[in-house]
Structures are given as structure tokens and as C-alpha cells.
């Protein structure tokens, strides 16, 4: 007997599995995809959600800078490098939003490469699919325009997000996935990122940058902001 038959057989005996009513209940639940309780804080006006998102990112030692347009990204990245004394070399996700920017004009000394990061890349710039306000969580998806290693290898994780991409709850993120990939379908890797990498494994002292990024910096593109 195969391991599969053995395990499923035992489960069916333990559960006294009988008619097809149970299968109907399972299919109904999988197709219904009903939301359970969603916290009130995730159900607010868009502007309030953007503020909540920013507050929550900061609460987990991330930083947020609002800029009025995508074209402000190169200068904002250059500022971050300067502030943390980082070398002028970055790896960006090969996303049209990022590749299409006028990097050489805004930051002429910056060495910009698009693709998956190499082991010695210190700074990565990624493009998030969504921001979940309830906990200040970024949703990043793998694919031709989104290498997942970019979220973990570099010391500095810079993420570009548009204000209108901020949603209230994780469930809103699932809806977005279903729209983009189809119901029940997923990209290979979906990362929810909430703050930088951290550990408390030595005497519960919280230290950032355990293995992944030491810093998380969100560039929030918000046309409502005046620079």
C-alpha cells in the first residue's frame, strides 16, 4: 500500500467518512472563499488607510518617505544611500515602473543594474504589488519583473509603492491575487514583508538584520503630498 493510501485510509476510518455530504461542504467552502472577521481598523477611508500603513511600518522600525511622483524615486534612493553612507550601486527589480525611470539624469553617479541581486549587492529597490494597512505589511510577488531574492539578500530593502495600492486587510490582498492570476492560482512566491529582518534569539534582545535586510525603506508615491 502506498503511503498516500495508508494515511488517507486511516483518516477516513478515524473520521468515519460516509456519504458525499462532507465533500460538498468542502467544495462549498473552497468556492465560497468567505471572509471571516476583519478588524475594524482595516475598514477605513483610503486616506486613513494610507496614514495607518505609514504608522504601522514605522512601528516595526521601517521608514517611510512620501514623494509626489514616481519620477522622484531616483533622487529619493540617492538620498537614502547618502544618509546611510552606502556605496552608489543598486540592484533594481526589472519592473517597467523602475526601469523606465531617468536614473542617469537624477542620479548620474549611481550604478544601476536590473535583475536578481548578486551576493555583494548592498541595496535593492523592489516594486510592491500592495501595502496592507492593518499591520504595515508589503505584498511582493515573484515573476519576470519581481525577483524574490531582492527582498532578502541586500542589506537595504527599498520598496516603491503607490498610495492607491494600499488596502486595508490581508483579504484585500487575496482579491488582488485572484484578479491577477485567477482564482486558486498563485505566483511561485508571495512575500508579506513587515519591517526589516530581525531576531530575538539571543536573550530576547531584538536585533535588526538577522539574515535579511537591516533596513526597510518605503518610498510611498502619493500625488497628494507636496514636496
Amino acid at each position, binding site marked *: 500500500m502506498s503511503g498516500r493510501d495508508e494515511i488517507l485510509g486511516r483518516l477516513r476510518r478515524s473520521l468515519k467518512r460516509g456519504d458525499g455530504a462532507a465533500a460538498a461542504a*468542502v467544495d462549498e467552502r473552497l468556492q465560497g*472563499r468567505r471572509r471571516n472577521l476583519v478588524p475594524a481598523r482595516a475598514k477605513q477611508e483610503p486616506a486613513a488607510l494610507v496614514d495607518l500603513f505609514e504608522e504601522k511600518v514605522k512601528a516595526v522600525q521601517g521608514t517611510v518617505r512620501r514623494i509626489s511622483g514616481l519620477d522622484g524615486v531616483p533622487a529619493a534612493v540617492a538620498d537614502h544611500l547618502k544618509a546611510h553612507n552606502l556605496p552608489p550601486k543598486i540592484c533594481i527589480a*526589472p519592473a517597467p515602473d523602475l526601469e523606465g525611470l531617468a536614473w542617469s539624469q537624477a542620479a548620474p553617479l549611481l550604478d544601476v543594474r536590473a535583475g536578481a541581486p548578486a551576493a555583494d549587492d548592498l541595496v535593492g529597490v523592489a516594486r510592491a504589488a500592495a501595502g496592507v494597512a492593518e499591520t504595515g505589511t508589503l505584498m511582493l510577488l515573484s515573476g519576470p519583473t519581481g525577483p524574490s531574492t531582492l527582498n532578502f539578500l541586500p542589506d537595504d530593502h527599498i520598496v516603491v509603492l503607490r498610495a492607491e495600492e494600499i488596502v486595508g486587510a490581508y483579504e484585500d490582498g487575496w482579491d488582488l491575487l485572484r484578479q491577477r492570476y485567477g482564482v486558486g492560482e498563485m505566483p511561485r512566491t508571495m512575500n508579506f514583508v513587515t519591517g526589516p529582518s530581525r531576531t530575538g534569539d539571543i536573550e530576547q534582545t531584538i536585533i535588526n538584520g538577522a539574515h535579511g535586510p537591516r533596513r526597510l525603506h518605503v518610498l510611498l508615491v502619493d500625488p497628494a503630498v507636496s514636496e
Partner: protein
Amino acid sequence: MQATSTAFKENAAGALVDAQLQKALTKMKAGFIDKRAKAAAELPEFEALRDQAKAIKDHTLEHLDLYLERWESKVTASGGRVHWCPTAEDARARVLEICRAAGARTVTKGKSMIGEEIAINDHLEANGIEPIETDLGEYIIQLRHEPPSHIIAPAVHLTKEQVAEDFRRAHTALPGDRQLEEPIQLVTEARAMLRERFLAADVGITGANFLVAETGSSVIVTNEGNGDMTQLLPRVHIVLASIEKVVPTLEDLATILRVLARSATGQEFSSYTTLSTGPRRPGDIDGPDEYHVIVLDNGRSAMLGSEFQEMLRCIRCGACMNHCPVYHAVGGHAYGWVYPGPMGSVLTPALIGIDKAAHLPNASTFCGRCEAVCPMRIPLPKMMRHWREKEFERHLSPPTVRVGLGFWSFFARRPWLYHRLTALQARVMGRLGRGRGGFSKLPLAGGWTEYREMPVPQGRTFQDLWAERRGERAQGARAQGARAQGARG
């Protein structure tokens, strides 16, 4: 790993006099409790979410065979492979097979309790493949050749001085006079050491906090990001999971995620929650070429439909041990197997047999804090009581306990006799102890008087006082009734 749960009493006695351990445990106590309380208080819906999380798992367990089948078909459709393993031995063999087929020399590992349960590291090592733990806590205990002492904080039993010593011993290529006093220096050193290992590994093994039936995804929840580097950088990703990890939909996953980190570390959300579905897709820039899921039974299917079914709701947050006075006193290693604390005291006997773990369900004061904080509302004290009953039924408890309980049940079934005898005993002891506060020695009660004095009984028994009170109350009620009657008339 070899279970030493039968030696719980000796283990615990040793733990109580281990100064380093006691120092580490003192640091641990307050942190976890305060953080959880704060996180729970900051989300008004927290208690309602616990109810829903429990209901989700109850529903899933009642339909576990069907959800596993649905999940499997989604994994297969996304190009992954599922390996059904009834026993730990099956799982070890499967993992080794996959590693060999990949020509693996080194394997990086994210934290996995299933990995501990099947003792995969020893098996790989014995077969010439080097496993490297990458979670910082797991890395430290691997250097020490120790099992984890906590399910989410594997090195919680160690002080930073001990870790520094281990690093000096293991990282011999580094200058001997380097500074290693502060946790940040230790973290930085481990990060640098492990970076190369991540990049060189042929296979990455992670655990799974959940499996999602709707999408065929496996989910890991971490703070360090090590589990992600483990699964993204090597060519092959192996997931170690067990049958009860499945949840129906992404919506159900969201609900349980909302209670997980808050209960575990007191964070609102862990740094990284990752859903992995199959191998890399055509056009993807990175990710593994192969995706395998080991789905382990190892005794769990027998818990289904039994009085221990509810234990399968456990999401391994560690809140029960973080709040347990026994765990606080002796730490995790005393429990002698993979799962310590209250959840271990229920799960371990189910997985390795009550004969090998009979002490564990007795290692509880039944204070009930574990159940009070369990996000899945698992009735842990009730289930420990079930195990004690089974222990007694199977004649596993020691003769003194059996004889004592025999006496007790004889008198408990004869209340009039019990009453007389205790009244007599209280009178005699009261007279014997007159003039002193307590007894420092009593026949048959050495276990008690060795650590504290037995107070001298004062006056009458509880039963007497209770009977008197009841009499007074009944009289009072009659008097009140009479007054009411009078008022009506």
C-alpha cells in the same frame, strides 16, 4: 532524537540547580507574557478572532482527508510533488532520496519542528550530507549538539556569554581577540558565517506553518528571513509538513495569521510571511527548480476521532510554554523530547507513547494559564487529565501513588467515614501541634515537609464550618421568607 521523557524528574531536578539555565529562564519569563498581553489588548477583535480560528481548524479536522486531497491536487497542478509519509522513517528516507537525486553535498535548513521530530539532521549527516541550520537559535544549538528547548525560541535556555563561547570554539578562522559581549556582535558574526552557506547549498529544507488547500501553497512565518533564503537560493526546495497543517482558504489563513504572531512573540505580524506554490515558473528570475512537500502522519491520524483530536488545532505559537510555571522553572530540555511545555505534555505521549512519556502530563499544576492564552483554545489541562487517566488504567503509575489513590477512593466513596476521620485527624494534629506554627516532619508526607512546613490545623474542619454556614443561611432565608409573607398578608 532519543526521548528522555522517562527521566523527567531527574531532568527537572538537574535544571533547578543549573545556574546558567535559571538565569536565562528569568530573562525569558516577563518578556513573552507582557508582549502578548499588549498585542492582545491592542486588537479589540482578538478574542473573537480566537473563536473563529478555533472554528476554522475544527471544521478542517472534521474534513481533513478531503482538504488534503484538494491541497495535493493544487500542488501537483503547480508542478510540485507531494510525498505522503506515514512514519518518521519514511520521511527521512524520502528526504535523503531527494537530496541524493539532487547530488547534494550541503543542505541549508529553516526552522522546522517536523525536522526535529524525524531527526533529519542526524540522518543526513550519517549519509554524508551536511545539514546547516540557518535560524540563529537553531544554528547556536546545532553548534552545541543540543535539541531546541522552545518551539519558537530554540536557544532561549542560553545566555549570551554561552553563545559567545560557542562562537569562539566554532569560528576558529576569526581573530581570537574579537569583541563578542553584546548580542548585536553575535548576530553580525552569525550572519556573515551563514551568508556563504546559503549561497553554496544544493537543497533548502524549510518547515511549514500552514498548507492552503485552495491554492496548494505552503506558508512559513519568520522574522529573520532565513527561511526565505533557504528556499530561494538552492535548486531544490523541500518542505517538511504534517497532515494537520492544512487550512481551507486564503481567508482562513488570514484569520489564523492574525492570532499567531500576537500569541507567539507579541508582534502584530512577523517580519516575513511567505506563501510558496510549486517550483519557479517560466520567465521567473529566481526561485527553486524543484518543489517537494513531505506530509508526515507519525501518529497524528490516530489522534483524530479520539479525546486528543483538539490537540491537532495547535499552531505551534509557544504561548502555552511562555505562560507555564513549570516550564519557567525547569526549561524545555527537561521534557526530554521535541515538544516541551503544556502542548508537549499532551502531544508527546500521543506521538511516542504514554509509556515513554507518563511523567509529562503530571508536570502541571493545572493552573490553567496555558488554556487561557492558547489562540486555538485547546483545553490543555483537560487533555493532560485524560493522559493521567490512561496512565492509571494501564498501571503505569508507581505503586505508592496507586495505593494512595486506592485509600483515597475508599474514603471518598464513604462521606460519613471521611468526615469523621478528617475531623479526628484535625483534632489530633491540632493538639499535637499546640504551641508551634507547623510540622517540619510528618509520616507519609516527606515530599511536602522537605520544602515547607505543614501548618497546624486550627479549630474545626471545612466540612463542619460549611454545614454551620449552610444552617445559618437556611435560617436566614426562612426568616426572610416569613417577613415577605407577612408583608404580603
